[in-house]
């Protein structure tokens, strides 16, 4: 078709301005789609942080707060859960398994988690993936510790290295009298587990056995002396619960929330995540708004380019008119040109996006724990792309209308 060829050659003749315009639209599309991808990836990675756990139980506070300190190691618990309560919950009908979590100490900025060895089997992330050891095994001694991948990466520990746990978070008081030994190192997960030092509940109990209130009592015990004592825990921070049947979750949740001996809170991780995401949602919407603005800016740039070119193309329009082209055709050609540029921009943008994702995916996952699955464009993204191209064509109406009137009024007398 001669007009398609003419339109293409006309664009090719102005390749510099046209390709810069296409690049501007492409980059705006990359920004928009990239924000979408990272947003969804972050959301999914966030939601993937914990899976396979049906309920999280802690002292009564807010559900988001409970989720943050128990799963994300952000913030602190306001209160503890007594060991008796935990045992009661574990015996409740419908509970398949319960894993205690004891938080509150740290090691050089990383949280220390006291739990049972069962944690390594029960903790699941990213749709059921389990924890794996790159070296060593789970703890079987009171003073054994298992390190997350980030802890090892930044502090450089090897198996059997000694580790001194500090009392509290960001503290100068250390449990140097009772050092732990690195018994295992976990593979990278992209979850807060990577930044955690995991020890046994007995270990947590042992380092605090000679403490009274917030300080060390006189006549402290050695590690070997501590081993001989009863190290069964008295309190924990939170617990992960698995149920026998999903149908029992809400019954169990109510039973825990109504527990008479102590004010407790049980939350469904997915629901708490949704609540948390709703808080973050405002920033998310703002980001989306900004990237849409950038797309609009690029389209306005395109319209400005077409407008700027109209004057030097008056001759072209007069020639087309003289051979019989109606002003409608000239208008159509300009709209088609705008749509073509917008479509090319969208296509180049998608190509850049996927090339970028392919290049950065591993790095994003390793560094920020944001896993972006290499899937195609979602329906929402397709609709947005189509809308951008349609908006481009629509924006092309303005210069096209101007061309229409120019071609009517100029007639054959164009002074160059």
């Amino acid at each position: 078709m001669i007009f398609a060829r003419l339109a293409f050659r006309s664009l090719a003749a102005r390749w510099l301005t046209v390709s810069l315009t296409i690049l501007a639209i492409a980059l705006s599309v990359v920004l928009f789609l990239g924000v979408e991808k990272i947003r969804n990836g972050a959301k999914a990675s966030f939601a993937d942080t914990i899976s396979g756990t049906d309920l999280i139980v802690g002292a009564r506070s807010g559900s988001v707060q409970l989720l943050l300190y128990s799963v994300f190691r952000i913030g602190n618990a306001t209160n503890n859960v007594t060991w008796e309560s935990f045992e009661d919950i574990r015996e409740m009908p419908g509970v398949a398994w319960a894993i205690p979590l004891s938080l509150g100490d740290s090691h050089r900025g990383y949280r220390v988690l006291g739990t049972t060895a069962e944690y390594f089997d029960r903790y699941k992330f990213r749709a059921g993936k389990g924890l794996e050891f790159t070296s060593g095994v789970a703890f079987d001694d009171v003073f054994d510790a298992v390190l997350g991948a980030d802890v090892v990466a930044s502090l450089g520990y090897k198996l059997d290295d000694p580790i001194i746990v500090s009392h509290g978070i960001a503290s100068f008081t250390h449990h140097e009298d009772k050092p732990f030994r690195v018994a295992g190192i976990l593979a990278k997960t992209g979850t807060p587990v990577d930044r955690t030092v995991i020890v046994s509940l007995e270990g947590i109990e042992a380092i605090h056995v000679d403490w009274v209130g917030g300080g060390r009592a006189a006549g402290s015990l050695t590690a070997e002396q501590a081993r001989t004592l009863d190290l069964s825990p008295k309190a924990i921070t939170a617990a992960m619960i698995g149920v026998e049947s999903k149908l029992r979750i809400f019954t169990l949740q109510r039973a825990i929330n109504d527990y008479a001996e102590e004010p407790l809170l049980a939350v469904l991780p997915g629901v708490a995540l949704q609540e948390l995401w709703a808080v973050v949602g405002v920033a998310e919407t703002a980001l989306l708004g900004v990237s849409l603005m950038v797309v609009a800016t690029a389209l306005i740039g395109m319209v400005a380019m077409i407008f700027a070119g109209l004057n030097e193309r008056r001759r072209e329009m007069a020639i087309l008119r003289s051979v019989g082209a109606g002003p409608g055709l000239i208008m159509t050609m300009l709209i088609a040109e705008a749509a073509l540029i917008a479509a090319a921009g969208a296509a180049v943008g998608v190509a850049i996006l996927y090339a970028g994702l392919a290049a950065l995916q591993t790095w994003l996952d390793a560094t920020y724990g944001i896993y972006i699955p290499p899937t195609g464009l979602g329906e929402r993204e397709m609709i947005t792309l189509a809308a951008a191209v349609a908006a481009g064509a629509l924006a092309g109406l303005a210069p096209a209308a101007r061309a229409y009137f120019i071609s009517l009024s100029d007639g054959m007398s164009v002074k160059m």
Partner: protein
Amino acid sequence: MTEETALALTNLRFTWPGSTGFTLEVDAFTLPKGERTLLLGASGSGKSTLLSLICGISTPSAGSVTVAGTDIARLSRRRRDRFRAENIGIVFQQFNLLPYATALDNALLPLQFAPNRRAKLTDERAEALRLAAALGLDPAQMTSGGAGSLSVGQQQRVAVVRALIGSPELIVADEPTSALDASAQASFVDTLFTHVEAAGASLLMVSHDERLADRFDRTVRLEDIARVKKAAAV
């Protein structure tokens, strides 16, 4: 008016749009079929306006413009565009071609709007190349690169191919030689005559150059047939 008239202007009145108040009036002008007429006029004498009216790009406020038996002033704008494509071949002073398109695509352009002209040809490309060769343009010049890279004289000849292809009734040329040097002018006019005659078309050429007059069947001075008024005189 007979079938033998290629162009007839009768009681034509045209007022420039806007408040300028310029008017152009032509009481009567005819161009017999097959004739080659030179219309002499200085610049600013209303030449371009008259050509726009004859080609149906502008519409008169009164009177008729009859081309090959059809009063184009009565046609709708869409039908006038179509009529122009079918019946009139136009050669401008210069910058005749879309510079980014090949010379061949430029030459074939009017056929896109003129199915009747296209129907006369069995092979459009071959016809365009044949005409081009007759005008001294080889096929490589027609098909490779943008028309903008051809010399001015070559571009004018491509414009003639475009005007003649598919044999329209009337060829209108607006100072087609003014961008050429003296020796090129004479050979261009000769070539134009030969091919207009071969196509059986009529030629209306507008120029300010009286030296061309003796080559034409008839020479008409614009001021003899048209009155241009300026409202400012009121």
